[in-house]
């Protein structure tokens, strides 16, 4: 125990003495949290909308005014011909072209039906999908309104149109605030990144400068050395989490419905998993660069397959199977469940069990792969 304290003491000294590393550890993650949480939104705004109105009628003007009223759309231009509009879309100046045919109003009144043409720039498929939904909604509302008007004009009676209106209600994040959704996830990524990178570069660094050989010649025991080495990063991980949670509350006003202790308890175990992984990488690398590249390799896979940016449910089955091995996936799930939904321990036992097992396995592998004798 005493030996471990000597190592911990030395590690902390080295961390705080390294003027280059300190800001990387403490300042960068927080800047990232502030920037990414504001930037990483799936909401689409300022859609560059243009239209070609061949009809110039009251009905067509009303439809366009609906788009004007929407916060999501920004009317860029009005074109006279489709060719002109297409050219602008090619240049990337417009995202949407709504073409209102001649006789639009007439057909509506006469036949009670008409057609509209909408072209969407789908270079970014995901945005195009969302834009399509927005447009359909606006046209749908317009349609309902026009229907009821037409019915009243025609029959001059007070038949209430039978409309079915769906009112979606979003649970746990009822204002659909993307920050509420993204901040806990990004916080998880930062905690993971910092601890994984630092721990994976730590032992290999001693290998590089030659001090590891000196350590291996001492009677120090493997577990003493490893605990002493990793404990400081475990503490650092919890500190980063704390600062991140404070920012989440103060800056982004993310609710904390569940038990804070549960988040810390889970993070404590989760960090052991990440540190074990870092140690394993460190033991198998000869240089810090190598350790860094391997860590990045895993990190990128973990981030993209965490369910944070793309829903796991929409991945192909084989990819979904891979995400089962992704620790970030569980951490993101837990943090969101506890913070936004107020989950209790009984709700997260499965994830807790998986993470604990994972941590035990990785740390065993890491300890076994650290050899004082070769």
């Amino acid at each position, binding site marked *: 125990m005493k030996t471990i304290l000597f*190592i911990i003491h030395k590690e902390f000294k*080295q961390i705080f003495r390294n003027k280059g590393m300190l800001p990387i550890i403490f300042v960068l993650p927080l800047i990232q949290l502030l920037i990414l949480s504001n930037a990483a939104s799936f909401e689409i705004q300022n859609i560059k909308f243009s239209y070609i109105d061949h009809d110039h009628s009251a009905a067509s003007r009303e439809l366009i005014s609906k788009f004007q009223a929407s916060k999501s759309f920004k009317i860029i231009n009005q074109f006279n011909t489709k060719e002109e509009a297409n050219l602008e879309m090619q240049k990337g100046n417009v995202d949407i072209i709504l073409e209102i045919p001649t006789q639009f109003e007439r057909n509506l009144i006469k036949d009670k039906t008409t057609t509209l043409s909408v072209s969407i720039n789908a270079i970014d498929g995901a945005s195009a999908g969302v834009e399509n939904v927005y447009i359909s909604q606006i046209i749908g509302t317009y349609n309902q309104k026009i229907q009821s008007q037409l019915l009243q004009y025609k029959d001059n009676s007070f038949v209430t149109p039978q409309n079915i209106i769906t009112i979606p209600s979003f649970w746990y994040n009822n204002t659909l605030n993307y920050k509420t959704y993204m901040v806990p996830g990004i916080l998880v990524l930062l905690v993971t990144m910092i601890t994984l990178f630092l721990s994976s570069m730590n032992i290999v660094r001693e290998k590089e400068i030659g001090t590891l050989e000196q350590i*291996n010649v001492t*009677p120090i025991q493997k577990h003493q050395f490893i605990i002493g080495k990793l404990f400081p990063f475990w503490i650092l991980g919890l500190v980063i989490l704390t600062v991140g949670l404070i920012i989440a509350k103060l800056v982004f006003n993310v609710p904390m419905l569940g038990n804070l202790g549960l988040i810390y308890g889970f993070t404590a175990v989760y960090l052991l998993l990440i540190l074990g992984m870092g140690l394993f990488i460190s033991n198998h690398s000869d240089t810090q660069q190598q350790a860094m590249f391997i860590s990045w390799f895993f990190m990128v896979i973990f981030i993209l397959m965490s369910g944070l940016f793309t829903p796991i449910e929409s991945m192909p089955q084989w990819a979904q199977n891979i995400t089962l091995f992704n620790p970030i996936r569980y951490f993101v799930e837990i943090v969101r469940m506890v913070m936004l939904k107020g989950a209790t321990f009984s709700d997260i036992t499965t994830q807790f069990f998986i993470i604990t097992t994972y941590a035990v396995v990785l740390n065993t592998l890491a300890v076994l792969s650290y050899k*004082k004798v*070769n």
Partner: protein
Amino acid sequence: MNQEKIITVNKLTKEFGSFTAVNNISFDVYKGEIFGFLGANGAGKTTAMKMLIGISKPTSGNAVVAGFDVKTQAEMVKKSIGYMSQKFSMYDDLTIKENITFFGGIYGLSRAQIKEKTAQLIQDLNLEDVADKLVGALPLGWKQKLSFSVALLHEPKIVFLDEPTGGVDPITRRQFWEMIYAEAHKGTTLFVTTHYMDEAEYCDRVSIMVEGKIEALDSPKNLKQKYNVNSMNDVFLKLARNIE
């Protein structure tokens, strides 16, 4: 001279794939002697030494160091020995005092012992002015003297020195050897590798390794007689040339 054996090496061999770095070597080292372990670059000195200090497993053969088998009791061996590698291996970003505290601590010294040893060491090496300076800023000669002293912190029975004076100026080398003599005088056994043949002359006995084998082992005086030359330098050249 004391004839009590403190290191017994028996048919020790280390192979890396098809390459035999250390080929079936056997020798004894006596308690309290300064044992010079010579050889050209790549002759297998460092590999042999790493097996003796318990950080490299022998392919075959065995060695007993300070009464413990290097294969099965490596951790016991490590308690009884000190080691100074050819690469400076203290923490450049810690001060002299912090390095001493750390290494003392992992050898299991108490806080009180560490305090006492630190004061003694700093006084002996005249490091009072720089005791709180980072080790990285020290000149090489000082670093080497410091590493040697740190290797002695836990009062080991044997100290292994791997090219301790490489790149050090003649005055510091001289001082370094005075420290080695003082330590041997206390009864510590010193196992030294070096490329400086004048240093070989200071050893009680010298072994010369050539291509993984020990070609000669005796006192410098006897070796010079045997090969009919005037200096250890010539002994070394003769042995190394035979190979070519």
